[in-house]
């Protein structure tokens, strides 16, 4: 990965944290610290069910698949510059498809999962076709409308979706019935998906996507098919949201309209922004914070929604680059500066300073 790929003066959200990026002039161990941190996270994630009670394992499971959901939004919003408010509709398409196929259609889980993802991909592509023509606020409004269409179907088409009552008895894979087994299953699926998204954003396709985010008008003149890139990004992102939807449906053994409602999309966007738009780990950090406040703090604080709102406002005001962005800017870059003798900060830090001036 080369740091010259993006221009220093952009006010845009951060790219990936630069994990493993060579820090010029720094001792060789510094570059490895990140890998150590990453390894630490992996070990922690693996040991999680052995460290905490089943309730927290459940929260961890949710943080993982909501993290994947936030990451799918991030892929669109952070890398492609397409802020969506309808992503829960796509998550819900897969979730509902799985629920319907495994319960009333009586399909085995494996084929049902594949079919559900297929349905989700088709719907994503169709919604993408409608949405990618627009930009900015118009794109947001179209995705919002698309999400509401799915919600409308979920609530109104009673015979198919169970309406308000949703669909219960969605099965889990036979090897992942226990809460901790399911945690590892989710961990594995989310890890693979994260890896795939990681590869995607580092690929030429991902670079083009970032190019679209930075200067959509210039790319056609360079010979890029902007519309097609956006459509593919939209569809791929929808499918990853769909994977999160499958995991969610199987986790709760239930799927209902509130999971496809506009608020669910907004929550996903909130997770994404909270953690840091355009970062990979940010999605999971954001999801963890939201899940923690929503499910744990809510037991002790009646106005937990307000608390979440305050956290969100504080993050947006004090750290527009999100928690992960702030961490890199405030802590990591300082470490780097100290080690390298303050002269040459790491590339992300430079980029970020630019961002700060622009805002």
């Amino acid at each position, binding site marked *: 990965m080369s740091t010259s790929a993006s221009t220093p003066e952009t006010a845009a959200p951060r790219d990936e944290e630069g994990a493993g990026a060579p820090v010029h002039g720094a001792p060789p161990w510094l570059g490895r610290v990140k890998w150590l941190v990453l390894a630490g996270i992996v070990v922690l994630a693996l040991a999680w069910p052995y460290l905490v009670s089943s309730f927290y394992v459940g929260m961890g499971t949710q943080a993982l698949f909501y993290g994947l959901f936030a990451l799918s939004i991030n892929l669109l919003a952070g890398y492609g510059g397409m802020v969506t408010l309808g992503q829960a509709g796509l998550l819900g398409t897969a979730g509902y498809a799985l629920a319907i196929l495994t319960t009333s259609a009586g399909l085995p889980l494996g084929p049902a999962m594949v079919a559900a993802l297929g349905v989700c991909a088709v719907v994503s592509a169709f919604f993408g076709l409608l949405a990618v023509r627009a930009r900015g606020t118009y794109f947001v409004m179209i995705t919002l409308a698309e999400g509401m269409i799915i919600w409308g179907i979920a609530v109104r088409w009673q015979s198919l979706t169970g309406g308000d009552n949703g669909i219960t008895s969605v099965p889990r894979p036979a090897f992942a019935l226990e809460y901790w087994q399911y945690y590892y299953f989710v961990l594995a699926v989310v890890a693979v998906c994260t890896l795939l998204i990681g590869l995607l954003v580092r690929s030429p396709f991902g670079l083009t996507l970032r190019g679209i985010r930075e200067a959509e008008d210039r790319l056609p003149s360079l010979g890029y098919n902007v519309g097609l890139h956006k459509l593919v990004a939209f569809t791929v992102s929808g499918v990853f949201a769909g994977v999160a939807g499958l995991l969610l449906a199987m986790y709760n*053994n239930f799927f209902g309209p509130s999971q496809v409602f506009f608020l669910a999309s907004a929550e996903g966007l909130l997770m994404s922004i909270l953690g840091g738009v355009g970062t990979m780990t940010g999605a999971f950090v954001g999801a963890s914070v939201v899940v923690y406040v929503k499910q744990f703090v809510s037991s002790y604080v009646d106005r937990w929604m307000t608390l979440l709102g305050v956290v969100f406002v504080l993050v947006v005001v004090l750290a527009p680059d999100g928690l992960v962005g702030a961490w890199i800017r405030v802590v990591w870059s300082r470490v780097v500066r100290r080690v390298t003798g303050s002269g040459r900060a790491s590339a992300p830090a430079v980029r970020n300073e630019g961002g700060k001036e622009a805002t």
Partner: protein
Amino acid sequence: MSNAIRLLAATVVAGALAAGAVACGAPNDSEGGGKSGPLKVGLIFPTSGNVAASGTDMLHGWQLYWKVNGDTVAGRKVESTHEDDAGDPTTALTKARKLVEQNGATTLAGPLLASSGYAVADYLKSNPNLVGLNPVASSDDLSQRKRVDNYIKTGGWNSSSPVHPAGEWAYQQGWRNVVTLCQDYAFGYESCGGFVNTFTDHGGKVVKQLYAPLGTSDYTSYLAQIPKDVDGVFVTTVGADSPRFLRAWKQLGFKGKVPLITNETTIEQSTLRGMHGDEALGLQSFGHYAEARESPATTRFVSEFKKAYGQIPSYYSCATYTAAQWFAEAVKQLDGDISDTDKFRATLQRIQLKDTCFGPMRLDDHGGAVANSYLRKVERRDGALVNVPEKTYPQLSQFWRYKPEDFLAQPVYTRKYQGADWPKSCASYASDCGLEGSR
């Protein structure tokens, strides 16, 4: 792309480690409950969100029982932990897990909405070592086609049960052509279905069925669709929609001109508390709770509730109060040992309460409540609006007078199926067909 390769390697290692961890076996699993110590009950009542007011009433009812009767039963202290599901099924599930796994609850009570109820029912189904008390989620199928054995309607009801007599009553009033206006979701369909089913049995005709979504702010457009020549209107509204409907009914001049009968939730204490005019005065409704019922159980409950919370209790409070009474009775009968879930469940199922704030109550073989339904009229007493029972339909089954097997062979009431063409003859009645031969 060397980063990608490293990432890939890391994932493979992680995967291998995960597989190893799975092979190592389950992490330690702790489970609460036992033969001594406190009895832990987890409460899932929505105290925020759209139905927060009713959820708070539920909490108050539950707490009042233990305040009045003491929180120790058969030598064991009852320890309740409350969690707020905000009226959302997913949250209800999470909270159920939290209550069981964190707080060691072995009994769950709640929630309010049917959608949350189905989610909790499913959770209980896969956790047969738990027992759920369901005093409020009135979805018909929870004690009919989708019954879960360890989720029991203690102090509970069915959406259609109290209004089954309403259809018959309306026909007896001489109504022949009616319009129904119900809330556009499962509860509304079931409530309307109860009325339509029995009304049409006698030969009554439903001219039009209107459905208003939950959260309708203006009922004018719905009332405008009611034809001039109808004999009566049946209405089911819920929560904040109820006062809006009642205001529109009065303002548009329907009140006093067009006969109206409603279900329980349209004219409920939570509605009446906020009504300072006479919009509701004199209106009639059918319900399984009547706060002005003169019986020791009801009057004591109402006066204790007024003393504690300064208001007249709604049916939600009566329901959780009764559920607590039911629970306490079962614990008493088992001498404090509820560790055998099957025994505990069977005891709950068997209990007959001679008098509750609802009246006498027990469960039928399907787990549905057998309770009174009251024809109620709103009157002003001591400055407050209350539902006064005018007529009692004693000990109604969830199947009305139909044969349970015939009734269960029909689908649950939905927007499409309201039971208008069913049954075709008296053969599906278990007793006293009562049809007037106009079919």
